[in-house]
């Protein structure tokens, strides 16, 4: 399903990161970075919420007011705790969404659809925190434990984006809502392989729905497939749909210096795709170096209980088409 929008724009964005992202190749593009993963808080959970709060503060500063009609937010924590606790004091209508690491583009797609007379200004946010995710999905942080090369590293950060009909910023042209795809993969350390078929399906259906060819876009970005997932997607697209992925990159491979930083196959997490998109890609679009970009954030809908029960991991990918104005 592809939704075509009329005059929907992403006016302003804000990006906040942790230390690993700040030390990566895109470090200078972010609004604010913390040196410490606790960010002055006592728990990883509080630190994760703080990433959203900081992103919001920066957004308020940029737009000069707090005049927002609706918030849409997603993250990885159980019961969306990071988002719920961050918005507890905001006193503005709120929708929590979960699409794992595809939450960012789902938020944009929903915001574009929900714009109305009553909701003229919608802000979507996502966040993720490496240590909070490690604690919840894997092992205690201090345990570490050796991991395979295909493991991805959950990015730490919070982002926000203001969506309205005001012609300013970047145009949200259309969005394709993804389907839940069974990857038949059970390896929790190979999320790239879990999510590649979902990304491929969404890209293919987006092109089919819009009647466009792959060359229409100056850049196609997948969310967080990592080094190996990116290779899998390229081969899968060619073998399954006969499409050669041109002008293609994966934000998971862009956020960190893969040679120097200890991030295995690259970045992941809901914040991975929007950090690269809002921080770096938007600036390239505003400079007119890129005109049309398709962002396909990918989410592994992993449930630890279901994986322990030997079930394969479902995945989803939501795409948004962005245009420079």
């Amino acid at each position, binding site marked *: 399903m592809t939704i075509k929008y009329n005059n929907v724009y992403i006016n302003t964005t804000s990006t906040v990161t942790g230390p690993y992202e700040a030390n990566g190749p895109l470090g200078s593009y972010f609004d604010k970075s913390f040196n410490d993963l606790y960010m002055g808080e*006592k*728990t990883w959970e509080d630190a994760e919420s703080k990433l959203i709060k900081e992103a919001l503060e920066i957004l308020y500063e940029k737009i000069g007011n707090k005049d927002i009609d609706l918030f849409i937010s997603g993250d990885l924590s159980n019961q969306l705790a990071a988002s719920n606790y961050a918005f507890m004091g905001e006193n503005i209508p709120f929708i929590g969404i979960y699409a794992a690491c595809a939450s960012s583009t789902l938020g944009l797609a929903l915001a574009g659809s929900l714009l109305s007379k009553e909701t003229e200004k919608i802000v979507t946010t996502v966040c993720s925190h490496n240590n909070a995710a490690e*604690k919840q999905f894997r*092992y*205690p*942080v*201090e*345990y*570490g*434990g*050796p991991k*395979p*090369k*295909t493991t991805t590293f959950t990015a730490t950060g919070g982002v926000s984006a203001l969506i309205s009909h005001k012609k300013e910023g970047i145009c949200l042209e259309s969005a394709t809502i993804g389907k839940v795809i069974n*990857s*038949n*993969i059970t390896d929790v350390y*190979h999320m790239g*392989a879990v999510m590649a*078929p979902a990304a491929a399906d969404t890209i293919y259906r987006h092109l089919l729905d819009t009647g466009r060819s792959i060359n229409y876009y100056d850049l196609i970005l997948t969310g967080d497939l990592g080094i*190996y997932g990116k*290779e*899998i997607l390229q*081969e*899968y697209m060619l*073998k*399954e749909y006969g499409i050669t992925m041109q002008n293609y990159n994966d934000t998971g491979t862009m956020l960190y210096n893969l040679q120097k930083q200890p991030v295995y196959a690259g970045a992941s997490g809901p914040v991975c795709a929007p950090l690269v998109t809002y921080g770096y890609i938007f600036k390239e679009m505003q400079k007119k170096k890129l005109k049309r970009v398709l962002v396909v954030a990918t989410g592994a809908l992993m449930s630890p209980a279901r994986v322990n029960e030997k079930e394969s991991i479902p995945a989803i990918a939501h795409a948004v088409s962005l245009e420079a104005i």
Partner: protein
Amino acid sequence: MEKKKYKEIVDKHTPKENILVNALTAFTIGGIMGIIGQGLIEFYSYFLTIPEKEASVCMIVTLIFISCLLTSLGFFDKIVNFCKCGLIIPITGFAHATMSAALEYRKEGFVTGLGANMLKLSGAVIIFGVVSAWTFSLIRMLLGVI
């Protein structure tokens, strides 16, 4: 795409782990751990004149203390990442797993956090340790009877 075909693509793009290097590292580090352990037993029994049976208990306690201390100081995870099973399999790994869980869940309360989660990783070691000890003792007893 068929499950099998997709698996072929995935396998093609999945890097191989250096099993040989990992095994050699674990073997060497594990061996060094054994030497350190034996050295500690010798130290306790020779210098402190503790009987050998009690000296080995003192050795275990010393290794547990050192691992817990290094875990709490925040860099044992990096050493484990390098040494892998050389440090995970000995008592150091058990201590590290318990300590890291205790540190992580302390903030969720003494009983509901620390108490309930401290053995989250190492609990399985205790359970299956007891079960296998019981099984082997049973086998030994039966063989002794025959």
